[in-house]
């Protein structure tokens, strides 16, 4: 964690090739592991852990390459979209239960989404929806939220430094 948090733009000149290379190498594996943890309901892990690991991977990237390049990789629009989209998935899976069953079953009663239930059975529908809507939703939101928080907390403005120095 060089420079503590984010590297201000002007210090980009003194960047370390080794760290950059290693982090560029390691990032896909972190992301892969994150996705594995996120979707795999068989073992330990789930949306939170997976999402956090994904976020940690991106945070590594942002820390190493600087906030500006981090922003290029994860633009604000994408970030905001994922923040909401994850919850759309989760919340939507609940609302879909009501909508598909015409109000016959409760919110989050996953077998109420009958197309899935017809395909894979009652228990299967729960497993599938948990894995592909709920956990993915959780993961995306957690990932996007932590990335967004990190951007906002770490990105030091030039003018802010001026203000602080003046005081």
């Amino acid at each position, binding site marked *: 964690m060089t420079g503590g948090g984010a590297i201000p733009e002007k210090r980009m000149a003194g960047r370390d090739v080794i760290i950059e290379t290693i982090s560029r190498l390691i990032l896909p594996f972190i992301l892969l592991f994150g996705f594995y943890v996120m979707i795999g309901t068989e073992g330990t892990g789930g949306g939170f852990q997976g999402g956090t690991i994904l976020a940690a991977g991106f945070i590594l990237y942002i820390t190493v390459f600087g906030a500006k390049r981090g922003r290029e990789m994860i633009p604000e629009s994408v970030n905001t979209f994922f923040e*909401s989209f994850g919850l759309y998935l989760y919340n939507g899976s609940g609302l879909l239960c009501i909508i598909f069953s015409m109000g016959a079953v409760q*919110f989050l009663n996953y077998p109420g989404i009958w197309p899935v239930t017809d395909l894979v059975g009652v228990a299967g529908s729960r497993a599938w929806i948990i894995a592909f809507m709920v956990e993915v939703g959780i993961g995306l939101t957690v990932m996007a939220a932590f990335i967004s928080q990190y951007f906002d907390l770490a990105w030091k403005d030039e003018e802010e430094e001026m203000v602080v120095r003046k005081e």
Partner: protein
Amino acid sequence: MLLAEQLPVIIVTVAMFCGFTILLAGYLNKKSAFWISLLANIVFFALSILTLRHVLAVGPIKYWQGGWRPPWGIEYVVDAMNAYLLVILFFIVILIEIYSKRNVEKEIEARKHPTFYALIQLMVAGLAGITVTGDLFNMFVWLEIASLTAYALIAVAGGRALRASYNYVIMGSIGAVFYIFGVGWIYAATGTLNMADMRILLPVVYDSRLVQMAFAFIVVGIMIKAYIFPLHFWQPDAYTYAPSSVSAMIASIHGKVMIYILIRLVYSVFTLDFIRYYIGLDLIICWVAAAGILAGSVFAIKQRNVKRMLAYSSVSQFGYILLGIGLSPLSPWGLVGVVAHILNHAVMKGCLFLAAGSFIHQEGKWDIRSFEGLSKRMPWASGAFAIAAISMIGIPPTAGFASKLFLILASLDAAQYPFVVILLLSGLLNLVYFWRVIDRMYFVRHEEPTEGGNEGTRRLPISMTAPMMVLAALCIILGIFWLTDIPMPLINQILSDLSTGGRL
């Protein structure tokens, strides 16, 4: 499953849904945030009225999340009390949102509007969630949503609001952790988190010290969140420096819902028997409340800043509600007082904060001593302030009188005479600090500045005046409403739903 039974959960989830939607829509178009939020809340208000009607007609709604039966899954229970609170919640939120349109445009920079309204919407969702949930841990989650949004919404004003908000973060989190700690104790004792289930299982372990510990921790946690007297110290700063519409919303709604948690726990989970016979706490609650009533008023008298004065007044008024809770094991009127005062105080405090906010919005005046001649320049706002202040004092045809009457009757009925004196004294203290403001606005002779050129041009926008006037009118209408026997079915339903043993 009937659609009417799905209403409460639809309100909560769709409110959250709107929260995310506002964020996305606000990203694309800043103006849309407000309108989505407002429209959604109006729809929810209609739905909550339907819910209340359904509950009064059919009985409590019990809703099992995910189709899991209560001890296994999360249950939402909507009885008369919840539905009533839900209606109040959305009603006040709509009015304050209408008010906030112009006020926020002035107080908060434009780029923050989408996030601001998203947070408002999420706060409303959180409060609605607290209101309808029937599960202790689920309540914690909603509590945290409501609190987190409140922290941020207070801090957005910048300046001193930041420090106030930070204190609130620390105290609020400690409160939340105390709450969850209490839930842990009660979980260790009974092994369940569902309120209805807990109510059945608790009598088995009433003697257990775990339950007493749980009660102590939960109550302390909620006392911090609901700024009840000895633990209120984060609150005045937060109310004073927050944006006007936010302090109105938090003062009139947030605190109510927090104290609702206490009501729900005392009545539906621990039950009055436990409070009275196993830990003998009812009178202690009463005395704490009484201390709060007096101390809040005395502090309020000392204040110069109108919003800070209102904040301390809230501390005092929450004492009323707590007093009602404390008295209710002894008299059913205590609960009537609580039910009435929740609505009345939401209306009155909302109106006062909106009016105070509009003084700041229009003239930048927050010091009571600079209020001379305000009635001439802002007749509607100061009229609303005056009516609500009179209502706070408890002059008869207004709402404050009704709750005072119920509580006095309750304390007489419970043969706790000191509280009668305290309630009456509190009315007089309220008079002292509110009348000071009214005097300044209306009656202190004041020379109009001669350069009256721009006076006429800058009038308070109608979208800010109208909500205040509605609330001020409600102050009077409710005063009459509570005296009539129209709310009797509601109150009887609430009494029997909360199982206080008996009807009026």
